Each structure stands twice: as C-alpha cells, then as structure tokens.
C-alpha cells in the first residue's frame, strides 16, 4: 500500500505541466501547429490590407455581415455543447446528446456558409479576382474543412458514448474532440472580424 502511494507521489513529482492538458499532448501539438499556420495567413492578410485597403474594403462591403455573425454564434454554441459534453464525461453523466448537438451546430454552420457562398460568389468571383477574394475563399474553405472533420469526430464520439459503460475508455477521445472543436472555434473567432468587419464600411 505504502509502495503504491510512493509510486503515485513519484509520478506526480515527475509529471510535466503539459501532462495535465485536457485531451492529451498529441491534440495540443495539432492545436499549436494549426494556430501557427492560420496565424501566418492572418498576419499576411493584415499586411496585404494595409498595403491596398481600397480593394479589401470594396470587396468586403459585399459580404453579408449578419450571416457571419450568426455563424459565429452557431459555432460558439457548438463549443459550449462540446465543453458540456467533456464535463459530463468527467462526471459519468450522459454526454451523447451534447455531442449530437455539437455535430448539428457544425451542420447549421455549413449550410449557412454555403448559402453565403451562393450569395457572395455569384457574378464570377474567383480566388484570382483580387487578393481579398483569394484570402476569403482560401481561408474560409480551409476552415470549413476543419468544421466538417469536427462534425465527423463529434458524431463518432456521440455514437461511442451512447452507453454509460463505454465512458471510461472514451473519456480521453471525447476531451480530444472537444479540444479540436475549440481550435476550429478559435480560428473562426479571428477569421470573422478580419474578413467581415475590420474596415468593411
């Protein structure tokens, strides 16, 4: 008994701060890599904007800001639900409904996004129309791909934890899914003001 306690104390002494990260170290390496990639594009976008603000403002002015705002709220609602799912798993309470809600919020986001593409990209706008439209199409499509992956992960986790006795073995995977969804949310939280709001008038 005392040997077990000694081992546990030794393990705690040797633990690093990153061992405490929710979802495990691997998903956090993904988070950092993805954020760095998007951060480089954000800074390049901002630099491009300051070099030629008129083109960016004129192009931005055609975007439906309200639909972008609603989509942000939808994605944040998905983040809230997946955070509640992770807490529910921790407490061994039903979590499948929260995860289904998360996946559904992703579906709503995707539907609104495609409606927005239909509205804004009519009239032959492509990635080569100007720098603004390159960033808008490239960054929003790349983000949308992440949302689609998030929907699949959330739906898979909802299926896996539909029974309470499967909670223990899937707790780490649900936390990793939650962390991934929050990453997708963080990216959009910065994409939305950059592409839709700053200097759009």
């Amino acid at each position, binding site marked *: 008994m005392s040997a077990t306690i000694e081992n546990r104390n030794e393990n705690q002494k040797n633990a690093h701060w990153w061992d405490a*990260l*929710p979802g495990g170290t691997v998903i956090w390496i993904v988070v950092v890599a993805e954020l760095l990639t998007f951060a480089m594009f954000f800074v390049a976008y901002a630099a491009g904007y300051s070099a030629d603000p008129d083109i960016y403002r004129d192009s931005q002015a055609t975007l439906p800001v309200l639909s972008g705002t609603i989509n942000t709220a939808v994605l944040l609602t998905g983040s809230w639900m997946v955070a509640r799912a992770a*807490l529910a798993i921790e407490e061994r309470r039903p979590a499948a409904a929260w995860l289904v809600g998360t996946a559904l919020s992703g579906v709503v986001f995707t539907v609104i996004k495609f409606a927005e593409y239909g509205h804004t990209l009519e009239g032959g706008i492509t990635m080569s129309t100007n720098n603004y439209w390159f960033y808008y199409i490239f960054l929003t499509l790349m983000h949308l791909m992440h949302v689609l992956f998030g929907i699949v992960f959330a739906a898979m986790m909802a299926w896996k934890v539909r029974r309470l006795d499967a909670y223990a073995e899937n707790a780490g995977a649900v936390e990793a899914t939650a962390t991934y969804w929050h990453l997708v949310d963080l990216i959009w939280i910065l994409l939305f003001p950059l592409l*839709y*709001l700053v200097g759009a008038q």
Partner: protein
Amino acid sequence: MNAARANARLVDVTWIVLVALTFSMYFVDQRVAAEASGALPILSMAIAKCLLVGAVFMGLLRASRVALALHCATFVALGVALIAALIS
C-alpha cells in the same frame, strides 16, 4: 459535486458572454467610422473571446497555469501584430 456544478455554471456563463461579445462586434462594426482604426475595438473583443475559449472551454484554467499563460501570451501577441499590421 458542487465543484462540478460550478464548472458547468462557468461554462454556461462564458457561452452567454461569448455570444454577447459576438453581437457587440457586429453593432460596433455598424457604427464605427469608415477607417481601419475600427480594428482596435473589434479585434480587442475577438482576442478577449479567444482568451475565454482557451481558459474556460478548453479547460486551461483548471488544467495548467503555465499552459494558460502561454495561451494568453500567444493571443495577445497575435492581436497586437494584427492591429499593428492593419493600422500601419
């Protein structure tokens, strides 16, 4: 049990604050003058949202102070870089 309930309450309140900040950004955007200086309030709110998502939703507040400090430093630095690039 009480701690679990408090965590759930914190997540709920954070969600309300995040949605409120989102619509505040929209209304600031509708009112702000036609210049890039509007970047300051809007991006400040966006960075505040990123800090809240990391601290509460991602669980860094409970998990690790070092990770939380790194998260905050990263997003504040990114926000400053974006605002500087937009306003310059």
